[in-house]
């Protein structure tokens, strides 16, 4: 990571489209993500930031307040706070208060562990704070499989506490997986029940997500199901612009792209500050290749945002390789940089979940090398909150044998054979 001596001057088209302007970068991010801690009570199988243990270099309360002061000066009006589990930082509520009173609105993501009735009442009394509860299954079976035992109940209890306290319009944030795409209507029903808004996001192969992506990323027909559901329900559902790689479906249907920017905002309009003050191009790219600088070591966030070599490069015209000749290039613009990087695909090629199937072809070609993850804060030893990710099933051949041949003895089939309960 390098910080340039002076801020690069970029020629701007007068009156160009907003997308063209965004690709060249903004003076400050529209909204940035700030992971306050890598510590977490859970160990979700697909955690983007490989969270678990607190990093001993974590920014102090005073250092965090200095970052907030700078965000206020830069007129960053909104920050997404996450982690880890941000609410287990002892100074979380103090920092929340500090941000809001300095014109920096907060939306924080939580698994709900600290949202007891008292905290829920406090949140209901604040303005300018949004709460987003993570829920990755509409049933405990599906949710707890990836988020760990008891996490469904924790999330639902938090939602109930918020509703009882009169907190309006909490968000329920769902990472869409192979296992929960069939539950979209059920998620919507849960959101409606608790007076909340549903927010759907894409499973990224980042952090520990790389370990489970092959098993959990939606199948091609599920992508279509998801897209159709978004088109049918989109007005009341948030997506954080997450699914722009699906926009080609709409264009192929003769319609238009999904609402939103449909653009990779990494280092251009968004970025991530991690718990030790490292600045990455986007929340899904916690990796040295996307590290722009550090707020402590490199002269503050504004300097990193405006003068880092990495962000300057991301704001310069990109080549999109084979995708440029695709009829749907304007709809998806090559997809998600992080998804390509962490599946070992070239950044100037198709997204691994390209709706035309080019990503699958590239994945199958076999000559890709997965990048080492390197920024792992996972807990060193197993804990009771860890997801197990095992399902019990019977071997197909065992079932077939059972159906066709009588057991050699009653006990060979079942110790309770012959008994009726």
């Amino acid at each position, binding site marked *: 990571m390098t910080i340039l001596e002076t801020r690069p001057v970029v020629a701007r088209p*007068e009156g160009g489209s907003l997308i063209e302007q965004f690709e060249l970068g903004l003076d*400050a991010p529209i909204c940035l993500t700030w992971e306050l801690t890598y510590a977490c009570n859970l160990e979700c199988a697909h955690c983007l930031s490989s969270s678990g243990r607190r990093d001993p270099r974590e920014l102090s309360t005073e250092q965090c307040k200095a970052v907030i002061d700078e965000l206020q000066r830069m*007129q960053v*009006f909104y920050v997404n706070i996450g982690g880890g589990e941000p609410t287990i930082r002892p100074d979380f509520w103090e920092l929340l208060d500090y941000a809001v009173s300095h*014109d920096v609105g907060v939306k924080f993501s939580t698994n709900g562990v600290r949202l007891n009735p008292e905290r829920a009442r406090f949140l209901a009394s604040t303005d300018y704070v949004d709460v987003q509860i993570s829920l990755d299954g509409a049933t405990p079976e599906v949710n707890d499989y990836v988020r760990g035992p008891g996490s469904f109940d924790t999330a639902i209890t938090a939602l109930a506490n918020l509703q009882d306290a009169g907190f309006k319009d909490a968000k329920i944030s769902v990472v869409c997986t192979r296992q929960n795409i069939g539950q979209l209507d059920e998620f919507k029903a849960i959101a409606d029940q608790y007076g909340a808004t549903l927010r759907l996001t894409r499973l990224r192969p980042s952090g520990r997500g790389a370990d489970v992506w092959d098993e959990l990323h939606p199948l091609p027909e599920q992508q279509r199901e998801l897209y159709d559901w978004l088109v049918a329900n989109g007005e009341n559902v948030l997506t954080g612009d997450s699914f722009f790689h699906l926009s080609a479906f709409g264009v192929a249907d003769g319609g238009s792209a999904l609402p939103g920017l449909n653009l990779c905002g990494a280092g251009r309009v968004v970025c991530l500050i991690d718990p030790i003050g490292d600045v990455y191009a986007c929340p899904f790219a916690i990796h040295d290749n996307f590290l722009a600088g550090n707020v402590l070591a490199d002269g503050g966030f504004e300097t990193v945002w405006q003068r880092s070599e990495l962000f300057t490069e991301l704001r310069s015209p990109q080549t999109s390789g084979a995708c440029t000749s695709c009829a749907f290039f304007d709809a998806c613009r090559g997809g998600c940089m992080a998804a390509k990087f962490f599946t070992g695909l070239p950044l100037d090629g198709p997204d691994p979940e390209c709706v035309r199937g080019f990503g699958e072809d590239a994945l199958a070609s076999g000559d890709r090398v997965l990048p080492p993850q390197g920024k792992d804060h996972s807990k060193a030893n197993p804990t009771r909150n860890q997801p197990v990710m095992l399902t019990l099933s019977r071997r197909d051949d065992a079932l077939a044998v059972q159906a066709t041949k009588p057991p050699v003895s009653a006990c060979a089939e079942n110790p309770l054979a012959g008994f009726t309960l």
Partner: protein
Amino acid sequence: MTTTDQMLAEAWDLSPAVALRPEPFGAMAYHFGNRKLTFLKRMQLVDVVRGLAAHPDVRSTLQSVGVAEAQWPGYVAALQGLAATDMIRPRATDQARSVQEGAA
């Protein structure tokens, strides 16, 4: 009178809940109340929005910024868009304001 003519004759202000953040191509407008975000894609439009409060009506604001008359309908449409999300709001008339100030 068309809606364009009507707005040209009206007095408008930047909403007190809105902050304008300069950007290389114009500005980003953020409304602290309804949390809506919008972008002003031209420097001249930013000057117009910033100038509204100092002028008796939209017409004189456009003149002061030097917007060619042929472009006025476009600018008025942009202002109407901003008004729809309360980024700008009609200024209270002098009479109404003096009543308010008298009460304060």
